[in-house]
Structure formats: C-alpha cells, structure tokens
C-alpha cells in the first residue's frame, strides 16, 4: 500500500470505527425490548 492509502485507511477507521460501535451499542440499548417479540 502506498503511504497515501495507509493514511486514508487510518482516518477512515478512526472516524467510522467508533461511530459503528457507538451506533451499535446505542441502537441495541434503545431498542432491545422492542426487538424481542
């Protein structure tokens, strides 16, 4: 990978990673009771 590719990769995970984990945790937290039939 080029230096530019590595930099892009790092920033993508730095921004998207915590968003995904937080989105998952908050989404489950708020909706878990509704998710169980």
């Amino acid at each position, binding site marked *: *990978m*080029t*230096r530019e*590719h*590595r*930099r892009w*990769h*790092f920033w993508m*995970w*730095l921004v998207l*990673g*915590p968003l*995904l*984990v937080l989105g*998952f*945790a908050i989404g*489950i937290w708020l*909706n*878990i009771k*509704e*998710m*169980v*039939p």
Partner: protein
Amino acid sequence: VSVQYNAVGWSPFKRLYDAILLGGIALYLGLFFLVGKLAWNGSTEVLLLRALGTCAFLLLHIVLCIGPLARFDRRFLPMLYNRRHLGVATFLVALAHGILATGYYHAFGRLNPLVSLLATNTQYTSWAGFPFEILGVVALVVLFLMAATSHDFWLKNLSPGVWKRLHMLVYPAYGLLVMHVVLGGLQAEGSRVYVVLAGAGLVTVVALHLAAGWRERQRDQRLPGLVPEPEPDPWIDVGSVDEIPQDRAKVVCLPGQERIAIFRYGGMVSAVVNTCAHQGGPLGEGKVVDGCITCPWHGYQYRPENGQAPAPFTERVATYRVRVSNRRILLDPRPLPPGTPVEPARFEE
C-alpha cells in the same frame, strides 16, 4: 507469476493450510453439536443450523482480523497470503447454513421456499418482526460474489481496482451479518448472548483495524535518525547487510516518503520502492525467487537491479541507488523513475 492458467497454484504449504482449515471447521461443528446436544435438548436440525451459522460468522471474523494482526506479528503473514481460501470456506459454510435454514423454516408450506423466504415477512418497520433473514441473504450474495471472483483470473480480467472495490464489500456484508445475528438471536430465542458476542466481535474488528492503522501511521512518521544529508551528499546509513537474511529485505521508512525495500541476494544489495505496481503489495515482505523480487500478495516479480518485471510482463517499480561500505548499507532516498537500472552494491559474503 505465470503466463499459464493454473486453477490453484498448489504448494505443500497450501495443502497443509487447507487441511488445517477443513479440520478446524469440522472440529468446531462437531464440538458445537456435541456440547449443544449435552447442554441443550433442542432439535438436531436447529443445532446444526446454529453450528453452521456461528462457524461462518467466526470464520468471517478471522478473515477480517488477519490483516491487522499481520501488522503486529509476522507469523500471521502466511495466513494473510492465503486468505482467499478462508473466504471461500466462509461462503460455503454460510451457504450450508442458508440452505438448511430455508429448508427447515420455509420448505413445508404451499409456497416455493425461496418465495416464502423473501416475500412472506414484510414487517420492515418493526424491530420485533423485522425479516432478519433478508440481511443474511444479501450478505450471502456478497460473499458469493467475492468467493466466485477470488481467483486470479477475475483479478486480471476485472482489473485490480474493480476487484479490490468489489472485495471491500466484505465490510458492508459484515455489518449486515452482525444485525442478522443480533436480530435472529433476539427474535428466535430472546437471548442476549448473541448481542453480546456480536458486539464483542464488532469491537474486536474495529479495535484491531484502528490499532494496526495507528501502528502503520507511527511507522510512517517515525524519525529513526534517517534524515537525509543535505545535497550534494544524500547518502544515508540504513543499517548493516548482516541485518538482512539472504534473499530477504529490510524495509526502511523515511518521513514523508514511500517505504523502501532493501534486498540482499547473493553478495549484492538493491533497493526498490516497497509498493508492488500490481495492487500495492508490500514487496519488502516477499523474497528473491529465481533472481526476482517476488511480491507476497500475488507473486508479481521484479528484477532487483532495474525494478522491471521479467518479459512478457510490463510492470515496473521505482529503484534507488545503494552502496555498501564496511558492510554498512548507504542509500540515496531519492526515487528513480520506475524501471531505471541501478548497479547492485556488492560486498563480500
């Protein structure tokens, strides 16, 4: 790299790798089934369904984690370079799960099982009734596309850029599968175990990618005293020839520049850019085979003395001037145009 078509370039290592992979899958399914039968008195079909589903999900986690793990420990590199077989195995196990689930839950009605699977449940606005199966179907289609195009034939015909973009779809597919597992676990059993396990898997995948990205960034920014001397003497000392194993390379990171792979082979030293012209593979993690630097990702080759792929191939990589003085390697870090011949530095073995 070869001009001839080979279905699979089998080697003893690949056979061993595949044997371990198949043995591991069989062991997991067997253990899951055995423990499940002893601990939970459910039906055989449902147990097998869960064994296959969790196995495919676990395999996908391994596929996603190998890349970042290889950045921390070189012992993961052989797994990284044979990751495609793992991906195909993941698809096949997931397919078995899908077929069994469709047959078990949708084959006994009046509707065609596929129609029943895709069209019966339309509660897309309800969490409790959401057709989580659809998420699995879409992810399975993506896994199929990746498995079907995993061969070098497709890599060549689709072009590396398109192929790479197609295979990056593994991340959206993974997201769909996380929700498939969470919703499936909650709706079918009301069990929060699947939520916790899927969440832990997600955190692991994200944390490993972030940590590996951070480590690579640190390597790129590191200033190991390798600051080029001012003109007209650009030579920098990058270490001893004795640090580099025969037919292997040392990778040098210079601030603000691409990484440089310095190869030692048969009493000579040559330097090329660390990035393969094919798909950006790390040439410095490869070795010299038959007199050519061989990329560990797809086997593309370059002559160390000029960075040119042997005929009939046309790929070229940038080269660098090197000298050896008192067994110390001196490098001119200014890249020469791709394919520029450079006399290898010679030393007494």
